[in-house]
C-alpha cells in the first residue's frame, strides 16, 4: 500500500467527468426505489434491487471505479511517471484497488443498503449489503486486473457483467458457480433467506477471496512488465 499512489488515484477518480456518472448511479437507484415505495409499496420496490441494483448498478460502478483509477494512465502511457520509481508494483496495484474498492462500496454497496432500508425489512437489507460488499470487493479486483491488461477494459468488463453474469447466468443456473454476483448473494443468504442460495457457502467465500487476491496480484504483475511502446 502506497499512500502517494492512493492519493493520486483518488485525485484521478474525483478529477474526471466520469465521477459524475459514478455519482448518478446511486442517486438514480435510491430515487427509483423511493419512488416505487411511495407509489406502490416496499415489497414491489425491493424487486428493483435484486433485478437492477445488485446485478447491474453495483458492477457498473465497480467498472467505472476500477477503470478510472488505472485505465487512462495505462492507455496514454502516463503511468510511466508513477512506475519510473522504486515502488513495489504490487503496492501500486493494491493502492489503486483500495481506491476503486472504496468508490465501489460508497457509490455501489452503500446505496443498495440505503435503498433496501427504504423498502422495509432491515435484515434483508443487511443481507443484501453484505452480499454487495463481498461482490464489490471481488468485482473491483477483477476489473482492475482487466484494466491492467487491455485498452478495451470497459468493454471486456461490461461483457463479463452483461453477457456472462446477467444473460447467460439467467439461462443456465450452473453459471452461478462462476459468477461473482451469485457468490455475494450466497454469502448474504446466511443472514436472510430472502436472498437465493445458488451455490455452496464455503465455495462462495473461497472463490470471492481467490478472485480478489489473484486479481490484485495479477494487476501488480502486469505493472511490473509494463511496456512503453513508442508512437513511432
Amino acid at each position, binding site marked *: 500500500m502506497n499512500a502517494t499512489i492512493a492519493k493520486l488515484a483518488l485525485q484521478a477518480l474525483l478529477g474526471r467527468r466520469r465521477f459524475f456518472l459514478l455519482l448518478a448511479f446511486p442517486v438514480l437507484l435510491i430515487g427509483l426505489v423511493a419512488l416505487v415505495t411511495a407509489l406502490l409499496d416496499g415489497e414491489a420496490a425491493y424487486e428493483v434491487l435484486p433485478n437492477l441494483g445488485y446485478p447491474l448498478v453495483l458492477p457498473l460502478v465497480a467498472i467505472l471505479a476500477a477503470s478510472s483509477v488505472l485505465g487512462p494512465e495505462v492507455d496514454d502511457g*502516463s503511468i510511466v*511517471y508513477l512506475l*519510473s520509481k522504486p515502488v513495489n508494483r504490487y503496492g501500486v496495484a493494491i493502492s489503486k484497488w483500495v481506491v476503486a474498492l472504496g468508490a465501489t462500496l460508497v457509490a455501489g454497496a452503500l446505496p443498495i443498503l440505503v435503498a433496501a432500508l427504504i423498502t422495509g425489512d432491515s435484515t434483508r437489507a443487511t443481507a443484501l449489503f453484505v452480499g454487495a460488499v463481498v461482490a464489490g470487493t471481488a468485482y473491483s479486483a477483477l476489473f482492475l486486473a482487466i484494466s491492467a491488461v487491455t485498452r478495451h477494459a470497459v468493454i471486456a468488463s461490461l461483457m463479463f457483467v452483461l453477457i456472462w453474469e446477467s444473460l447467460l447466468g439467467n439461462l443456465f443456473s450452473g453459471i452461478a458457480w462462476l459468477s461473482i454476483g451469485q457468490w455475494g448473494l450466497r454469502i448474504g443468504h446466511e443472514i436472510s433467506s430472502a436472498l437465493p442460495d445458488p451455490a455452496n457457502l464455503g465455495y462462495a467465500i473461497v472463490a470471492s477471496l481467490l478472485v480478489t487476491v489473484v486479481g490484485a496480484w495479477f494487476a501488480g504483475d502486469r505493472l511490473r512488465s509494463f511496456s*512503453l511502446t513508442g508512437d513511432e
Partner: protein
Amino acid sequence: MSTLVLDSASRWFGNVVAVNDVSLSIGPGVTGLLGPNGAGKTTLMAMMSGFLAPSAGHVTLDGRPVWRNTETYRQIGLVPERELSFGYLTGRQFVRANADLHRLPDAAAATERILEVVDMVEPAGRRLDTYSKGMRQRVKIAAALVHDPAVLLLDEPFNGVDPRQRMHLMDLLRRLGDEGRTVLFSSHILEEVERLARHIEVVVSGRHAASGDFGAIRRLMTDRPVQYAVQSSDNRTLASVLMAHESVRAVSLRGEHLDVQVGDLGSFAVDLPGLARQHDVTLFELSPSDESLESVFAYLVAR
C-alpha cells in the same frame, strides 16, 4: 558515476525489427542519441529505462539488468516523451508526488530545491494544464531529478519547445553532465545534438550507425559524397573546370543544370566561387539535391 550498457540488444514487435543488435555504453557526461524519426530511438530509450524487455541481448545499469528491476529507478531519472496527464495537479504537487514516491527523507525541501534548479519556483503553484510546453518539459525534468539520480534519460526533450526555453534546457542538461551525471537525450535534429552533446550515438533503421565525439560525427556527415545542382552562365566551361578539381567525382549536364557529385564538401564549397570567377563564369544557382538528414543517415548506414 553510472554506466548504462546495451549488449547486442535487439527488440522486435511481431516481425518488425525496431532495434537490431545494438551494443553501446553510455557513461558520465551528456550523450546525444541521434536518428531520424522511426529509427528506434524511443524503443531504445524504453529498453534503457526498463519499460521494454529486450527480445535478445542485455541492457544493464552498472552490471544489473533494468527490466523488471524496480530498484534501478533509485539511480535513473526518466523524462518520457509522453505528455503529463496529471493536469489537475499543480507543478509543485506533481514534483512533490515524485519525491514522495521515492520516499525522500525531506520531500518538501527536495521539491523546492529542484524547482529552483529548473527555474520553476514562481509558476509551481499553477495547475499543469495551464503550462506552456517548455514549462511542462521543465517540470518533467524536475520530477525526474528530484531524487538526485546518477542517470538522466530524456526522450526528445526539445520537441515543441520554443528556442529561448530550449537554450535554458540545454544549459541545464550541460550543467548536469558537468556534475558527472550520465545524461542521455534523444533527438532527430543534428544541430540540437551537436550543440549539447560531447558524445553522439547515431541510430538509423534500428541499427547503431555511428558513434563518437561531435567532431568525428560531423566529419562523417560532411565528408560524404554530396550531389549539387548548379546553374551558371556557361555550364560547359564550368563542367570542365570542376572536373579538374580534386573534390569533384562526377559532372553531368542535365538541361539547364549541371549535376556535380562532390567527395569532399569542405574544399569544394571554399574553392567553387574562386574557380568560377577565374574562368569568367557567373553562378546563378547552387543547391544541394540530397541534403536532407535522412540521406545523411542513409549514407552512414551504407558506409
